[in-house]
């Protein structure tokens, strides 16, 4: 791993285009790395290799010259019959182009990294809103339902519309054109691409989910370099991929017990959402932990106020001595606004005191803004995705409106000060589109004959929104017709699911074959649809279209045209001046 052939290797790399080799280098080719940020450097070699035959160079020199340390040679990686080189916590502090070559004596792999600095700090605070899975149709439907539209003209704009800067964001990851919430969030929080199910790491070949090459999160950077406060607010389980992406390093997003530990180690100042089950020791009914650790007690022991209801959260936030707040309002995912505010379905009866996301954001900003060094706050409206998977677009759109109300709170905060960058985006899309309207009064036996398309769609007759921006009912006679591009076998009811979130498909006698849920079979006018995705899917899937980012505040002017999801990280760290 020295470099007896360094010059030759560099020459070969320059002359011979990189061919497909089994050698893999992390960070990957074309990685963009924040100057001074920590990352693990790993070279996976093809098979067991004599270390004397291995040559690694960074810009033609030994790696230790620029990376500060010598990579460790691993003769046989655990669970893999092959050698590797690993250097944990490397950093590059000088911006520029870096060419990394690795040779096992037979083949050479070369990658190029770009290291960038950031210039001086321009924003005191950053607030990043993620509408999980929020696609264009969610936003349009939210605008129609919340603001109203006649003669083609809206009666108002969403708070996330009324922002001066907008871009399209590409969401694909290292391994696939289609992303999940783990690797897409990783791109936002680390600036590095990752793979489906992976958080804060490049997904390596070893089976251990916790040993993959790590990249530093914005949480770590903001706390380590500037002493900022960090907040993570969601209405899903806090261990779920989007909130976990703020702190976690794991190949497997379902490592919930470990993710709770990572939150604890990160000491983020505000953590709010559902998912208390993995904070409770396994001896407590309701726990999902596999050990006896009591993380509620541990958080409390390091100075966190604990809130389990809306009132406790508001009281804690109002107390000016509260600078650390752990809010756990549900053992699992919290309920969406349609169930909490209107229908009282889902699990609202069991957990009647859940706060609204808007109030969570108010509380989080109150607590975080007590830190004079500023804060980074991530807010997720996570059930947009959880409801879009089972094709329950009404619930997803209501939670899009809720996200927008939370954005309005952040914009109000930012308007008073001009030192806060507010970004609103999604992590991936779902394949839904607004096709027209469904009119119960239209002629025709089958519901599909009552779909109005083009001019026959006219406008839906939802009631005007209430003071909070929600229509009082979705069960109107002429409602939006929204369909998904991808779906399992299911019964299309053409109606909102008033008796609880939609469950389109369930396991058949063969658990690998999901079948249309017979519960909806006898509703009037339903239509059975044969699925168009693999039969083991019981819900719809993420899609590959770009998502929209809107932004306001210092640094927002970089939001324009098309951006990669990793650029969102760069925009945030540039605004905060987190580079060396």
């Amino acid at each position, binding site marked *: 791993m020295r470099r007896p052939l360094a010059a030759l290797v560099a020459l070969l790399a320059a002359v011979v285009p990189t061919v497909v080799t089994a050698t893999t280098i992390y960070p990957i080719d074309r990685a963009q790395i924040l100057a001074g940020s920590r990352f693990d450097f790993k070279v996976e070699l093809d098979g067991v290799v004599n270390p004397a035959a291995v040559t690694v160079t960074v810009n033609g020199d030994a790696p230790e010259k620029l990376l500060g340390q010598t990579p460790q040679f691993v003769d046989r990686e655990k669970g893999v019959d092959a050698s590797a080189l690993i250097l944990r916590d490397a950093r590059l502090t000088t911006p520029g182009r870096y060419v990394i070559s690795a040779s096992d004596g037979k083949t050479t792999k070369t990658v190029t990294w770009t290291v960038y600095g950031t210039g001086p700090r321009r924003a005191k605070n950053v607030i990043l809103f993620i509408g999980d899975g929020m696609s264009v149709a969610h936003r349009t439907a939210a605008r129609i339902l919340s603001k109203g539209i006649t003669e083609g003209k809206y009666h108002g704009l969403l708070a996330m519309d009324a922002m001066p800067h907008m871009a399209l964001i590409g969401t694909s990851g290292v391994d696939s054109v289609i992303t999940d919430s783990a690797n897409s969030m990783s791109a936002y929080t680390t600036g590095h691409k990752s793979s489906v199910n992976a958080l804060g790491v490049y997904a390596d070949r070893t089976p251990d989910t916790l040993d993959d090459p790590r990249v530093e999160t914005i949480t770590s950077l903001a706390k380590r370099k500037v002493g900022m406060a960090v907040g993570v607010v969601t209405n899903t389980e806090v261990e779920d991929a989007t909130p976990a992406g703020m702190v976690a390093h794991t190949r497997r997003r*379902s490592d919930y017990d470990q993710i709770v530990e990572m939150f604890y180690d990160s000491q983020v100042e505000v953590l709010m959402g559902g998912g208390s089950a*993995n904070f409770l020791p*396994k001896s407590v*009914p309701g726990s999902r932990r596999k050990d006896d650790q009591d993380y509620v007690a541990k958080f409390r022991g390091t100075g966190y106020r604990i809130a389990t209801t809306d009132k406790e959260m508001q009281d804690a936030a109002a107390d000016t001595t509260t600078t650390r707040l752990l809010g*756990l309002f549900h053992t699992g995912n919290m309920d969406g606004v349609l169930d909490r505010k209107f229908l009282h379905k889902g699990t609202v009866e069991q957990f009647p005191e859940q706060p609204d996301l808007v109030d969570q954001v108010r509380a989080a900003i109150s607590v975080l803004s007590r830190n004079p060094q500023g804060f980074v706050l991530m807010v997720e409206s996570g059930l947009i995705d959880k409801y879009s*998977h089972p094709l329950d677009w009404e619930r997803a759109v209501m939670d899009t409106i809720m996200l927008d109300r939370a954005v309005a709170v952040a914009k109000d905060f930012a308007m008073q000060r001009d030192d806060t960058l507010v970004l609103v985006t999604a992590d991936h899309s779902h394949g839904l589109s607004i096709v027209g309207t469904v009119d119960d009064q239209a002629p025709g036996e089958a519901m599909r004959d009552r779909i109005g398309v083009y001019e026959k769609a006219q406008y839906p007759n939802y009631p005007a929104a209430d003071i909070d921006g929600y229509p009082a009912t979705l069960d109107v006679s002429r409602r939006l017709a929204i369909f998904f591009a991808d779906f399992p076998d299911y019964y299309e009811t053409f109606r909102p699911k008033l008796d609880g979130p939609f469950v389109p498909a369930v396991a058949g*006698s063969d658990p690998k074959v999901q079948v249309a849920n*017979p519960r909806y079979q006898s509703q009037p006018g339903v239509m059975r649809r044969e699925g168009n995705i693999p039969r083991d899917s019981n819900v719809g899937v993420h899609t590959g279209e770009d998502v929209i980012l809107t932004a306001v505040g210092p640094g927002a002017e970089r939001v324009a045209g098309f951006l990669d999801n990793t650029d969102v990280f760069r925009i945030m760290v540039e605004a905060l001046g987190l580079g060396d």
Partner: protein
Amino acid sequence: MVTRRALLELLLAGPAASLLDGSRLASAVDATPLKFTELYGQVGPLGLRFSDKAQGLRGHPVSMRGFLAPPLKPDARLFVLSARPVALCPFCQSDADWPHDIVVVFPRAAGEVRLTPSAEPLEVTGTLELGSRTDDATGFVSQVRLVDARGRAV
């Protein structure tokens, strides 16, 4: 269409002949019905408390109605019974995604286990066990179990 699948394979027991076993039928008759909503007296983010009814039935035969999820692993001997069909989460392969009020079912017969569609609710009868237990084979931690269980469609 799967729904009206003819009656309803005996789901957890072994050979169908065991249905005719008088003693087993008798135990099913003696079982006290217990609803999911009756399992816990107090529910909250900091934990759940078993209801007086559930505590009183500890160690006794009970019958519960719910939806049976596919096995966690192809060869697993335990099944998850839930109040609602589990389909909301996109990554349900992991036990991280189960709702808090599931019941783990250990079937009576050690042989091959067949599933009926979980679209149909099932009635599972077994001895009620309460309290944390980790399954040796799968590492699955459960709080409520029905052991020596058998099931039938309802």
